[in-house]
């Protein structure tokens, strides 16, 4: 049951360039989407979120885009920094079941010098 899919298990980007991480979902009841970042031996850390009533949310170097018709969201990191190297998880929740996040399998981002 893969309601949230991250089809790229890994991504390598040069420092200073843009990183684009993608996420697709199948459940049309999802109305809130989040990105979490995870370093080894640590728990997931919240990065940025977006409500289904918006199509873009920006926070510093991080921007999340939501395309509801395509059931697709993406996280843009620009410029990418070596400290951004981590596993990035896309997560979603349904209205009314807000405490239950459905996660994707994650994309490992490596930012090279």
């Amino acid at each position, binding site marked *: 049951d893969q309601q949230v899919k991250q089809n790229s298990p890994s991504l390598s980007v040069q420092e200073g360039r843009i990183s684009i991480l993608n996420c697709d979902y199948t459940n049309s009841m999802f109305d809130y989407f989040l990105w979490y970042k995870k370093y080894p*031996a640590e*728990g997931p850390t919240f990065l940025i979120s977006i409500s289904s009533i918006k199509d873009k949310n920006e926070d510093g170097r991080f921007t999340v885009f939501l395309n509801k018709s395509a059931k697709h969201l993406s996280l843009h990191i620009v410029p990418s920094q070596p400290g951004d190297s981590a596993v990035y998880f896309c997560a979603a929740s349904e*209205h009314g079941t807000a*405490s239950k996040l459905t996660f994707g*399998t994650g994309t490992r981002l490596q930012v090279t010098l």
Partner: protein
Amino acid sequence: EPEVTQTPSHQVTQMGQEVILRCVPISNHLYFYWYRQILGQKVEFLVSFYNNEISEKSEIFDDQFSVERPDGSNFTLKIRSTKLEDSAMYFCASSAQGAAGANVLTFGAGSRLTVL
């Protein structure tokens, strides 16, 4: 910065044994959660807890699992009789509110459970 603390960081147990994983959520948070991640798989929701009762649980959270808030600071996950497939990283999380739209979960670093 406030954090969610989990103990132990790693526990090894024999199949059939009981295990208790402990969590200290952020002090002013009211909603508590357990998630788990089996090696190589996605993070999965187990249970949410509010006002001293379970508010949601997944299919994974069967009768072998229970949660408790024994005092004002701890939140525990008990697995009564562990199975090999319970081997995973267990993450505790807490949030100030229950609505994801207005709220973010803060996760602990996880407790790795290995069942032999």
